[in-house]
């Protein structure tokens, strides 16, 4: 017997090996649980507070997709004439030169952020509909999210070329859409904003603020699609001192244009000239000495180097422009000019009553009559005649009235110049330059920065929109830009 057992030892050991795992299935459960205690699973949002947290998350993405970080407001202004790059990143250099590669990582990030904003609004709407009680806030919150979604679609349509798809993600699975024209994008946005208008029913103050934001955004779409009169009518009731603010704090986020200009010196306020000479068509934001765009430093680096410690620290320039050069930007080559409208944690108006008045003024311009031009000028001078809120720490001072231009073309030029200074750095400029081509018949060479690009002494490129980037590649229907029409 013992001999038999002796010879059977390997078999015995193997049997034990096979049986052991089966014998301890409960042990396996013990050893492998819990899995990842730190993660937040989707079940966390399955409640009213969870749905509301998603809503707030979408509002956070709204900030990221507009003026957060070196976001859309900065980049669209870089492709236009509001900013120039003082950076070493080639992605910013090629944006400034209007000569994109379709894999530009920074543009990819902007494109992602805009679409993420759509997705976040959609997530929040679905959660609010399921989990939020049918109280008075339900409609307001849903309206807010439709407005957020419409805003995202508006930014994609205004700044990207024709060919942008609008897809969705359902339970982690993408449903890809076909390329759409910018006009299609504006229609989507209009539809969603119309939903928002229907749901946003005052009288509570928060809803009034929201309703005006929806109206202003809807009106902007109308302007983009040529319905100037309708846009003016929609915003007529919005007071000039209205503002929809995006706020900041040291513990959440900094104002993007402060962080990337004043703090990091990667961005420089644009000008009509640089070391390569004049930049055709570019407005002299840095050198105009216009109180709506207060700056520090100058584009020529004149005045000698600032002496003494902290000479160009943020605090020194906050009170006004220095009398000396602000030195070089991040790239150690470009003369640095910083904006002095917003400081680190200021509130920034996403929308304002000034925007409403400018919509009304443009509707008058569109009449193409002397009376219309006069009315538009009157609106502009009314704005100049009153201190206007530009940021929580900066109001524009009262400015002298403008004389009447000699003709309608000059009036149009004046209007867009005034609009550019009033809305500096807030994501309007690129759309306006494209509209000058699309709606006012101007040539690209008469609208966009043209000439020799200062970083490499080569000509400016011909891009006037952001491309649909290669990040859209996984979409089977991806074609890139259908065209680059304005």
């Amino acid at each position: 017997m013992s001999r038999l057992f002796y010879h059977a030892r390997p078999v015995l050991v193997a049997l034990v090996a096979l049986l052991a795992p089966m014998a301890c299935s409960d042990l396996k459960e013990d050893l492998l649980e819990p899995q990842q205690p730190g993660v937040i699973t989707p079940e966390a949002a399955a409640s009213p507070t969870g749905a509301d947290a998603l809503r707030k998350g979408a509002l956070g993405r709204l900030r990221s997709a507009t003026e957060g970080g070196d976001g859309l407001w900065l980049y669209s202004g870089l492709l236009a004439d509001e900013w120039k790059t003082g950076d070493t990143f080639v992605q910013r250099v090629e944006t400034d030169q209007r000569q994109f590669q379709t894999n530009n990582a920074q543009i990819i990030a902007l494109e992602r952020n805009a679409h993420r904003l759509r997705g976040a609004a959609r997530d929040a709407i679905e959660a609010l509909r399921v989990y939020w009680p049918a109280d008075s806030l339900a409609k307001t919150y849903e309206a807010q999210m439709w407005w957020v979604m419409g805003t995202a679609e508006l930014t994609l349509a205004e700044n990207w070329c024709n060919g942008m798809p609008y897809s969705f993600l359902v339970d982690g699975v993408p449903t890809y859409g076909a390329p759409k024209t910018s006009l299609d994008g504006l229609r989507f946005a209009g539809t969603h904003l119309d939903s928002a208008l229907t749901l946003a029913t005052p009288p509570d103050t928060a809803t009034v603020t929201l309703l005006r934001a929806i109206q202003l955004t809807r009106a902007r779409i109308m302007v983009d699609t040529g319905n100037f009169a309708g846009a003016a009518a929609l915003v007529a009731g919005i007071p000039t001192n209205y503002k929809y603010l995006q706020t900041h704090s040291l513990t959440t986020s900094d104002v993007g244009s402060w962080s990337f200009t004043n703090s990091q010196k990667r961005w420089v306020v644009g000008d009509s000239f640089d070391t390569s000479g004049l930049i055709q068509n570019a407005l002299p934001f840095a050198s105009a000495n216009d109180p709506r765009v207060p700056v520090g430093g100058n584009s020529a680096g004149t005045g000698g180097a600032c002496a003494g410690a902290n000479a160009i620290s943020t605090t020194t320039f906050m009170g006004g422009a220095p009398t000396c050069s602000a030195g070089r930007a991040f790239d150690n080559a470009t003369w640095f000019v910083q904006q002095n409208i917003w400081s680190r944690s200021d509130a920034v108006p996403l929308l304002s009553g000034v925007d409403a008045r400018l919509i009304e003024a443009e509707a008058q311009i569109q009449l193409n009559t002397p009376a219309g031009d006069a009315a538009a000028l009157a609106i502009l001078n009314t704005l100049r005649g009153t201190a206007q809120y530009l940021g929580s720490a900066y109001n524009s001072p009262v400015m002298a009235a403008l004389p009447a231009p000699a003709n309608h073309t000059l009036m149009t030029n004046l209007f867009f110049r005034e609009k550019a200074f009033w809305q500096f750095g807030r994501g309007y400029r690129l759309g306006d330059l494209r509209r000058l081509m699309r709606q006012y018949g101007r040539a690209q060479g008469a609208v966009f920065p043209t000439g020799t690009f200062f970083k490499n002494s080569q000509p400016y490129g011909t891009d006037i929109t952001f491309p649909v980037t290669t990040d859209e590649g996984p979409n089977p229907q991806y074609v890139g830009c259908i065209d680059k029409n304005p």
Partner: protein
Amino acid sequence: MRVETAGHARQLLLAAAFSVAAAASALAQGSISGRITSKDTDQPLGDARVMVLGSSIAVHTNAEGRFRIQSVAAGSVTLRVNRLGFMEAKQVVTVTNGAEATANFSLTTAVQQLPDVVTTATGLERRVEVGNSIGVVEAAERVKEMPIHSIGELLTARAPGVMVLNGNMSGGAQTIRIRGLNSLSRSNAPIFVVDGIRIDGGTGGMGTGGTNSSRLNDLSPEEIENIELVKGPSATTLYGTDAANGVVLITTKKGKSGRAKWSWSSEAGTIQDNNEYPQTYALWGRKPGRAAGDTAFRCTLVTVASAACQLDSATTANQLRADGVSPIGTGNRNLHTLQIQGGSDLVRYFASGTIESETGPISMPSLDRLYLASQKTEIRPEWANPERLDRASFRTNVNAIVSPTFDLSVQSMFLRSEQRLPQVDNNVNSFYYNALTNPGFRPADGACLNAAFCMGYGAVSNLGQPLNGWAQFTPAHIFQRTVQEGVKRFVGGTTASWRPFTWLQNDATVGVDFASQRNFTLCRLNECPNFGTQRQGAVNDNHNNGRIFTATVRSTGTYRYSDWGIFRTTVGGDYLNNMADGSNSGSTVLPPGAQTVGAGATPNSSNTLPTATKTLGYYLQEQFAFRDRVFVTGAIRTDQNTAFGTKFQGVWYPKLQASWVISDESFFPRLDLVNSLRLRSAYGSSGVQPGATSSLRTLGATTVSLFTDQAALQASAIGNPNLKPELTTEFEAGFDLDAWSNRIRFEGTFYNKLTSDALVNQSIAASSGAAVTSVLRNLGEVRNTGIEGSVTVQVLDMPEIGWDVTLAGSQNNNKVVSLGLDDAGKPIPTIGTTTRVMAGYPLNSFFVIGYQYADANGDGIIAPTEVTLDPLTDTTYVGQAFAPRQATIATGVDILKRKVRINASFDHRGGHKLFNNTLGFLCAQTTTCFARSSLDAPLWEQARAVAAVAITPVRTNFGYYEKGDFWRFRELSVTADVPQKYTQKYLRVESMNVSLGARNLKVWSDFTGDDPEANYGTGDVPSILLTTAPRQYYTARINIQF
């Protein structure tokens, strides 16, 4: 922890249970004793391993060379003796019931110093029984003689197929890859096991521009006996999920029976950085038509050629080589180790203490010291020497024979290190950045107070400090930013071996690697460069904990079927729990003197996501030895892992190996030249697990300012419930040949491995609105094939002199077979743009738009119009980032009656391309690079700069992708033994030797960057941007035994 403890206890009980269940009847038993001596010297040999063939019994000899084996089954048994440095010996002994047999051995010295016994997942095995190739690094011997300062250096160029790219700054992290790259998305680093305990070999969290610290470097080479490199899945199957990239098995020194032996080693040396960092250039001129003496205007070659600038003169500068200005000086290192080992036949101990300090060559330049002194600013030690490493480690290993059937060993290591680094690499505050963007000249005092006279270069910084040629910031402020890492680490464990019967051995190991890491960065108020808000004061204090718990149990039953066949069955299981968590805190706006988070005006904090990746695996292995010359091993392992998707329940890994000592066969021709020939082959699978949370759909928490700060949620990862591990299956075959009286040893291995279900980050189109850019899926296939070979020749083997040479090399062929299908069912063609993962090409291949150039007007200058882009739709395959080819030449010469040994090694890496981003960046961003502002720049240099800067419609860095091939004179050492008559008479020590060593002496390469090993990354693609090149170490070491 309750779960782990309970679980482990239950595992042990299980192991005990099936051991007891297998209890057999007691057979007649006796014992064997004997003595092992050297045939040449007749001296006793301690630490020889004596094993009874066909059983689990193995003992070691004591210092007198004696051994005694109890409980041996009566009858005829075969004893086998292995000892490093001697030929294996066997002897048949007859054991009678209740009696003690005697077996003495006299071992012949081996010419080749290769260990006969290697470590495997199922315990120690003879090398000839293993079907795969194993690289062995005899660490203890090498460290005593060679200039080795880290584990990375210990592994560099030691084994074919093992690629090591060391960090270049003090304590910098290394990259280790074995047999190419398998994974598209996960780390391709091997796993690390110390004395059976899994440890963290990753990187730290230092806030520089790239260079990071290494957890692997926490281990002191002084404490290591040897390192075995288990190269691929054919050998790592039983190590389970995560072992597909190889396993580095580290065995620490153990005690040896005999009187206590002390050893003391001290090392001192200097560190020099003699690399040639790029010069900067300036062409001084004036605008056309202006008179000489007009305001200086910066020309470039292009503007000179186009007559847009009238050239007057040229200057050049090198901020990193200018006296008084350069922060690159001479560093130093010191190391002191005291070790003791000894014990009795029953208890052996080893204890070691090492203190080490290294001050890198980066230090505050004298001009900056003077400036700070003029500001009445006291220079803190961390500013004066911002690159510094201090480390102290203690190890205790105890092995006890509790009873004739029960052994217990306890290993423990405690380490404390403090490391600091300056701002380097890809960082606007980097001193490299500020040095290499120098304006092309270094102005004399006062010369550039008006920037207009110096082509726009101001003489003072924005803080009013004389720049002395620095671009924006000087070391006076750059080095004020303190970046420190403090690590406290404990690695400990215990192994128990219980042999209830002569045929059964049970082993259990429990261990933990606990690492507490603190990363601290500080800019006090009004310190650091004037960039961002850091001069308002900023501090970050992050604490991270890593815990790896290892538990293994296994039982091995050995069955001697007959004289010609022995079976060995092993069943085992192991459990691994890899946990990490941490908390981050920081604040800005510090009051004067403050340097803590709480003192700041705006404190904030967060925590890193706690993660736990747990693996539970079981395996069964059957080995068969036929006449001690044919060995066949088959095994199967199954794993469950918490990183797998919820819809994937487990994975199975098979293994099959064969080893045949064909030269022992009767039919093998008896050749004088051939001593032994072994053929071997192995097949096996292993895996790489997904990321800890990759399978999960998650939301992310964020805080949003909505007039007040409010908590919010945002969608995050999409997750994939079907995730499973990457499965890498490898076949390898090779041979080991000893010839010419064992003075030549050849090893050759071919391998072919296929990684299937490769984890691919499948991109999701932006328009989907997904929060993430990709989702992890098992889609791809990657194939690696290659050959490895080495030959070691004892050219001279005489009493007076000896000379040995080792030539080793490897070639890896890597190819992405497939990237799988997208959601529409179409093959995914490529991932990435410039650095691509693309079917049909090696992983991380470079694709760039090419260009052509010609100096059409013959003016010696390449203008933008003279560079023509290749078609934009046709990017060119430039090469792969990973070096597929390696070679090593190592030689040692013993002279003066073998009292002096000279070692030298050269190694080669090639077949790959490097992106010379340093020059590419400098030429793109500044006009001061050689190619743009030197009249001596050759046309090809000018062309690549023009292509990177000034051509339309797209710029291309094609010209900066260069051959990365190099040969390096890696190590040189001279070690002299002090004659014993002096050491014993005058110093009263047993032995002493002195070693002089030098490292990284010379490199030969066509690469135009600083060095083909200049790199700060730890990934699969080297990061060469404004970074440190390998330094030269010159060290002296003394080793004393007493």
